[in-house]
């Protein structure tokens, strides 16, 4: 599993800053494979698409 903000391994290092930042950011990396996702932000939400693992949304 990977941090969906920085793309590094979720179990390595401190990701508390990432978690705090994620309150005002959509995810950028797929937590399953760390690929960069295509992210679309709209006024009331977001969708993030991984070519391998599909669509996530707010």
């Amino acid at each position, binding site marked *: 599993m990977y941090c969906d903000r920085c793309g590094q391994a979720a179990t390595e290092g401190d990701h508390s800053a990432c978690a705090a930042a994620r309150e005002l950011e959509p995810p950028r990396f797929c937590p399953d494979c760390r690929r960069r996702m295509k992210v679309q932000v*709209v006024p009331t939400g977001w969708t993030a698409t991984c070519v391998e693992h599909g669509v996530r949304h707010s």
Partner: protein
Amino acid sequence: MPEILDRARARVLADGAGLDEAGILEVLRLPDEDLPELLQLAHDVRMKWCGPEVEVEGIVSLKTGGCPEDCHFCSQSGLFTSPVRAVWLDIPSLVEAAKQTAATGATEFCIVAAVRGPDERLMAQMREGVKAIKEAVDIQVAASLGMLTQEQVDELVAMGVHRYNHNLETCRSYFANVVTTHSWEERWGTLKMVRDSGMEVCCGGILGLGESVEQRAEFAAQLAELDPHEVPLNFLNPRPGTPLGDRPVVEGKDALRAIAAFRLAMPRTILRYAGGREITLGDLGTRDGLLGGINAVIVGNYLTTLGRPATSDLELLQELKMPVKALSATL
């Protein structure tokens, strides 16, 4: 009371004339203990020359990322190692975003693209998108598509785009520290074409890019010279992978001083809260700014980052007895 506030009261509040650059700088240098008085004066100026209404807007990115320009604050530049990938919004999603924006009571919906300037593909998307929005939603459409040619300006007018955003971002003397792929003067040229076309001019920038207090005053004075209909005021939200990704955020009190100073420089403009306010000011500071010169907000999310829920801002406006500007008042 500091002497500059006496002068501002006479010049700005009484006569509606903005402070000059030297006066703005004096305001930006006021000590913290004078901040409450400064904010009250800026609020009085806003109430006298703009009224209590607040203009509410939603924004959406039609084309995200992959931009060829190198604006050092921007996660959408293709020249940096930002994690933001290029993506286009389809027309049905664009119309849905406009509907969601209108449902908040917003009167403005701004379509934004991360480009140097529009190519034919983007103009075609705009033609289709603006038409579809106007058929489906009762809302004013604005656009922000970078630098324009005269033909593109004319075409946006023909589409019914009523306001065009093109930020100068920072003052002329600091611009080359922030952007190297185009000049401040090129941006000014687009703004002049927009102004001459009859579209409303929306032009602001970002505070916290590393500019000095003097340059902040210079920027406010240059905006006042442009006399835009609207000034969106952003505060740097340092983005990972950008050259400004490690800069500190603007101190809350400095942000509030700047809001008041920009209001005293431009007593009649729409001064809008834009990106970065959540991390710079938080909930309490957001309220202070609305009572210190701000009279417009972007509600909901931004282009690549998230904002407060629209309901939080709308509840705050209700608490402050600041009515949302109605669509009829903008036509």
